[in-house]
């Protein structure tokens, strides 16, 4: 029914009552080409409003008549032209920085634009740029990927973003790997934005393709590389037919661990480059990494050149504590079920019998008795049958996330591994005596009876439902 605000009130609402205490705001002047860097905890909120000039948050422009709220965020608002901001709320720390690598980021964008124009001119015969961003943890990879995406969208492109870092999800929970085309603005408050919900959304939803990885860091064995191969296949198939995406190309975000390398060999980077036909490889920060990679790729036969570029690490990149990262992961998981801020979602609580759940747990390499189970190593535990172990629910499942795949429980393990996921359910409670499980599902009604994958990542999330 229609709600009738104001009508059922005896008197019109008094305006003074609704003034929040945090409405004490301060002005912040930003000269051109500087940025306002801030850190705000999860228990506080910083509000930002653009009073004049222009400003952007990792490439997405601040709208003049919207007040943005940040929680549990470390970030920067940059201005090319100078601006005046109105700030409210509480930060842990903040300052204005004059030295930023934004010009490099913009140059990179315009260089990519050139390749996109070429794709357009070739009538999509040539593919747009395929970019991979690598660098240590907290080097600013995700920030750069976001800026490049926003700028591309702003330039009327439809770039694809592919996240290969299981520590932080893209339009999904941590532990997942995903890909999505961006045709609409990147959300400022909600990370990358929102995957589809059953109602209208104030910022256009993005349509991710999601796979479950389930481990904290990419290994060099039976899970990460095959998943990369699978995702590359899906993305390439899409680009073959989707002109707008093909022209815009894609940007791959990666985990810091693949940039560590082993004695100057970066197996996972090489694998990604070859599977996705990467032609622009961005390294952030480390000279060593840049030197290793440019040596590696400049020696390649020139039929497909890989341009290796080094970009300075921004002074704004902060090392994020394990505690912060954990809170960030939890908030991503919470958002998956409950939505963000005012746009609350209603997940469903339900019970299932043990027999309803077909759970496959990822067997990690160190469990198999082989210390470093590389794919090339012989491993009796990975000969096509035992990527997973099938488990019966037990109380250890409590507070864990299960990935609902599109594979049947009877499928081979490789099929389960390579299948995309429909979504995640959360185990709120296990009653071993009654053999029942209490679950939190994003959607009411039945969920697919397909294979569910349980990994060691993300870690348990206590208290998602009380």
């Amino acid at each position, binding site marked *: 029914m229609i709600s009738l605000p104001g009508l059922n009130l005896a008197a019109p609402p008094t305006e003074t009552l609704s003034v*929040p205490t945090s409405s004490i705001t301060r002005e912040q002047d930003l000269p051109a080409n500087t940025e306002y860097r801030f850190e705000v905890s999860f228990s506080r909120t910083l509000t930002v409003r653009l009073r004049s000039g222009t400003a952007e948050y990792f490439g997405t422009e601040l709208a003049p008549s919207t007040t943005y709220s940040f929680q549990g965020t470390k970030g920067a608002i940059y201005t090319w032209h100078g601006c005046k901001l109105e700030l409210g709320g509480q930060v842990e720390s903040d300052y204005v920085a004059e030295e930023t690598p934004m010009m490099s980021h913009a140059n990179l964008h315009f260089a990519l634009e050139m390749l996109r124009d070429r794709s357009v001119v070739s009538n999509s015969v040539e593919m747009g740029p395929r970019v991979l961003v690598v660098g240590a943890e907290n080097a600013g990879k995700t920030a750069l990927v976001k800026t490049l995406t926003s700028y591309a969208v702003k330039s009327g492109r439809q770039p694809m973003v592919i996240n290969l870092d299981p520590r932080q999800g893209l339009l999904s929970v941590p532990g997942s790997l995903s890909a999505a085309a961006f045709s609409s603005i990147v959300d400022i408050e909600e990370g990358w934005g929102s995957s589809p919900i059953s109602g209208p959304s104030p910022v256009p939803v993005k349509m991710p393709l999601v796979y479950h990885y389930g481990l904290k860091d990419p290994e060099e064995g039976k899970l990460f590389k095959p998943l990369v191969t699978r995702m590359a296949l899906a993305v390439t198939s899409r680009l073959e037919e989707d002109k707008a995406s093909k022209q815009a190309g894609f940007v791959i975000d990666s985990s810091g661990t693949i940039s560590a390398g082993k004695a100057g060999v970066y197996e996972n980077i090489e694998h990604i480059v070859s599977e996705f036909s990467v032609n622009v490889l961005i390294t952030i920060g480390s000279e060593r990494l840049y030197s290793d990679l440019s040596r590696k790729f400049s020696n390649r036969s020139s039929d497909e050149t890989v341009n290796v570029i080094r970009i300075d690490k921004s002074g704004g990149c902060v090392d994020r504590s394990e505690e912060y990262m954990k809170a960030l992961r939890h908030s991503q998981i919470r958002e998956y079920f409950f939505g963000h801020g005012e746009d609350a979602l209603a997940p469903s609580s339900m*019970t299932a019998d043990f027999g309803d759940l077909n759970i496959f747990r990822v067997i990690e390499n160190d469990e198999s008795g082989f210390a470093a189970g590389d794919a090339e190593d012989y491993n009796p535990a990975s000969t096509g049958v035992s990527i997973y172990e099938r488990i019966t629910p037990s109380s250890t499942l409590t507070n864990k996330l299960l990935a609902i795949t599109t594979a*049947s429980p009877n499928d081979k393990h490789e099929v389960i591994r390579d299948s995309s996921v429909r979504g995640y359910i959360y185990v709120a409670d296990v009653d071993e005596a009654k053999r029942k499980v209490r679950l939190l599902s*994003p959607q009411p009604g039945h969920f697919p009876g397909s294979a569910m994958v349980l990994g060691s990542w993300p870690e348990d999330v206590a208290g998602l439902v009380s």
Partner: protein
Amino acid sequence: MSLPAAEVAADFRDALQDLRMNSRPEISNLTLIAKENTEYAQAISTELENHIRTTRPEWKLPSLYVLDSIVKNVGTPYTVYLGRNLYRTFMDAYLVVDQATRKAMEGLLRTWKQSVPESMETRPVFPANVTGDIENAVNKIRTVAAQTQVPRPMHALPARPPSNVAWRDTSTPPQNLPRYPAPNDPRRPAGFPPTPQYGASMPVATPPMPFQQQFNSPQPMSSVDLADLKAELAQLVATTQTSFAHNPADRDIQTKLQALLSLKQILDTQTLPPQQLEAVRKQVRSLAPTPAPLPAFAPPTPLQGFPQHGIPPGFPPVGALPASAPPNIAQLLAGFRPPVQTTPQPAPTPQPPTFNLADLLKRVSSPTQSSSVPAPAPFQPPPFTGFPPPITTPVPAPAAAVPPAAANPTANLAALLAQFNKPGAVPPPVPATPVQPMATPQLPPQSASSGPAPGSAEWLLAALGGTSRGTPANGTPFAAQPMARQISAPTNVLNDIEFTTASMKKPRLHLISRLYEVKPNICATCGRRFENTPEGKEKKARHMDWHFKVKDPDAAKRGVHRSWYMSEKDWIDYREVDETTPATNAATTNSVAKPKRQAKDRYVLVPQDPALQHAPCPICQEKFETQWNVDANDFVWMDALQVGGKIYHATCFEEYSKGAGIPMPSTPDSVLGKRKAENGVGVEGKKVRSF
């Protein structure tokens, strides 16, 4: 994100200040603000009323349309707040606007007597007693006007045919185009397919503004003056007639009236040379009575019914006018002075406030008002510090330098690109494969002209010209589309960026305008930018519609939830939908992308009938899942199918019909769908009890 009332009201006021013509995006935006801030409805309503009261007569209609849009699209509590003073708001405006605007307002009034189209609500927009009072007053005024023969149109220009293409360039919605965004109105009865024509069956609800009509058919100045003069004269005739009616014995008045009438006849039937016209005008002005210093007409008790004769208070019955000062329309009009005059009035003689068409034309063609979406002042980027001084617009190319319009546009483009290319840069993007003309960027020939080196920073800056500087003080309009096209074209400007670490560090601030000034028109809600071209404006209009649609304050209460992600196959076939592309395009793209409709993709609109609403699927006894559907623009039950008055899960029915040998109703691709369902990867739902 909601702000305290004063701030919201101030925002709303600011946005209102910019509203000077019938601009759908602006009206939608204002409606959106109102919709998002229903808790401050009172403050917003007051703001709107004040604005309608104080703004210039020619800007009143757009703001009345804002009122209209808010009460129709948002409804309560605005209907309540705005209804309280509606009589006054409406009548104050009605009395001071020109004839064409009055007609438009009368049309508006008619729609308020009906219910909101496409809504379940059967009651009229405003209560009958409110609209009834206004209608009575309007009728009275019209009667008086008719009796005193005030000529109806002041600037009698033929109405434009509604489908005139010229309208597309203005952002005014012509009345036959879809009106305000059809909101995803939860009140709309299910079962009715959404009609794009929100006000299709309604009388003129958002008619074009009168001065835009004039703008569309400008006339030579002499006829402009003539029209003015005629209007002045007609008013004078009217005044005099009224006086005569009350003083039939007064010979002076009678003589004057006769003189005026013959003058009028001359003007109506003959073409006079300018000097004579001027003489006539002098004559008329000297005859015009000193206007009564009446303030704008304000009925004292607007909400009460009218006294006995059904005449609004303050409007004495015509037959009983006091002999001294008959407050007829002309005088009321004459007493009104537009609060702000852009052009100072040189003539000290009081003038009837007829709208001088010349002035209007001037105003209309001046940039700040002609641009339907003026760039908000605070967001004019300050001049860039790192920029060289502005350079004049590139000199048009000498004819010889212009590549001939080749039959093969590709060659043409290639030639141009070749000219731009610097040696040593990345190879020119000339494709080996044939190129379709449509895919090539539009590169105007003169961009390869003399002036700053093509492709250089100076060249780009010059090409940016008007767009990069915001609106200069002198009011030069934004250099609209031709400039914007030039900028979006030259790939070559980027060619000096190489994929090297060193090249990334070079400052190239001039390129930043591609992210900002190239699209000067920003959405105040989300920051998305649009070009200042007719196409850009259309896109923005659709974008604002979209904002409006998705802003559903009730959505949260409906149990909106996260949906399952797409399957790999669906994702590969999926094509992004841009809210700024016309709906038809999006629909075609979609249908191309997903030619096969599976049973699980079928849906029905959530039924209105409570019995149906609560009935589970007759086959599996499960309830249906309510979900927002973008295509249907409504809440629907997915995987659902209506057969013979009952609603089934489409997949359930498919299973059942397969066994029973019944064809799936109207599903040409049911065979495919079936096969899919059989091979489906875990599509068969495992049912889990909800508790």
